[in-house]
């Protein structure tokens, strides 16, 4: 087999591999979702961040506007401090609220930002003051049982 022919075939093989890799990375994975634009950082404090992970989306009205870049614990107030990278095109009022929501019933958690009514906007490096922590299932069940028990208790009290 001619040397030239072998080289051409090997070149085609490598090109085919590169095409397959690009296909996997773009069409079958999330490389295209990485925001290449500039972002600015905003912080938010939560009592409980639940299952929020780094690179979770930050959404407003359902549209992704940024990503969670860092999750830390404040050693003094024992609150979770979440750093959000928001794309430069999106600005929110100073009194916007951040909630930890779940995508679907058992999906991943993300941060939803609801805009407030202030005239001034959030500066880079600012902290979102209105936050709502993630819903912890055990607390919910405990609350439900407590309410049920209180109901039954007051019923029997009335009957007696």
């Amino acid at each position: 087999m001619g040397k030239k022919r072998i080289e051409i075939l090997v070149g085609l093989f490598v090109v085919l591999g590169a095409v397959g890799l690009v296909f996997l990375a773009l069409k079958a994975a999330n490389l295209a979702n990485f925001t290449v634009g500039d972002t600015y950082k905003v912080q938010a404090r939560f009592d409980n961040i639940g299952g929020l992970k780094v690179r979770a989306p930050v959404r407003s009205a359902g549209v992704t506007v940024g990503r969670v870049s860092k999750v830390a614990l404040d050693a003094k107030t024992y609150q979770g401090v979440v750093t959000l990278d928001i794309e430069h095109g999106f600005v929110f009022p100073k009194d916007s609220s951040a909630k930890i929501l779940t995508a679907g019933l058992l999906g991943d958690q993300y941060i939803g930002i609801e805009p407030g009514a202030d005239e001034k906007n959030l500066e880079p490096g600012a902290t979102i003051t209105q936050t709502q922590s993630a819903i912890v299932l055990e607390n919910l069940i405990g609350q439900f049982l407590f309410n049920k028990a209180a109901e039954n208790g007051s019923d029997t009290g009335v009957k007696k």
Partner: protein
Amino acid sequence: MTDALSNLGAATLRWLRSLGHAAFFFLDLLRFSPAALRRFSLVVAQVHAIGNLSLVIILASGLAVGFVLALQMYYALVTYGAAESLGLIVNLALVRELGPVVTGLLFAGRAGTSLTAEIGLMKAGEQIAAMEMMAIDPRSRVLAPRFLGGIVSMPILAVLFSAIGILGAYVVAVLMIGVDAGNFWSIMEARVDVWRDVGNGIFKSVVFGVICTFVALYQGYETEATPEGVAYATTRTVVISSLGILAMDFVLTALMFSTP
């Protein structure tokens, strides 16, 4: 009694010695790789023999595995109403596990045995000895190019296996069963991480390529110079490579994918 003990001791010492021999062989392969890179046409010829000639079986297997995965996963998922996640499941299964491992096993069977047989027959026909007589180091001229060819080919083959598997799953899921095409791709794009999943899969396939090629070359080089010896050597290549791939797959998966 003492006979049995001395046999056991001798067998252990033999095994340790062969282990050390294999380690030095591996170091030689690494040491002569730069020299082989200078003779680039040798490496290209080996990539053709190892990679190009494996394309047909890898692509056919990938397509078949993609078809079957899509069918089986669909029947499992539709009971929970989660048929929309079919693309995601097939993608993760292929890119994380099946791509590297199945490609590795096929590679060991197809390319590993051909490498072992080739080197073994070169040894049997005294070509290696003739090269040493001419002051040509067989390690840099024969062994290292094949080692590099194997390391280069294996990740490319694994990537092609996964890619064509996903396309095959698309054909079955969307065109035949009727899963929504938009959801098929978008859920996959949203949840598969390019570094964690695709990247780790490629790293695995490189490790498997190193294992397969090293075992194949070592078995070929150390075989008895008889037809029977070559036959045993090819069998040992496939068995040891396959066991090595499966063991390393478990270790690598535990390291890479355990939840932090």
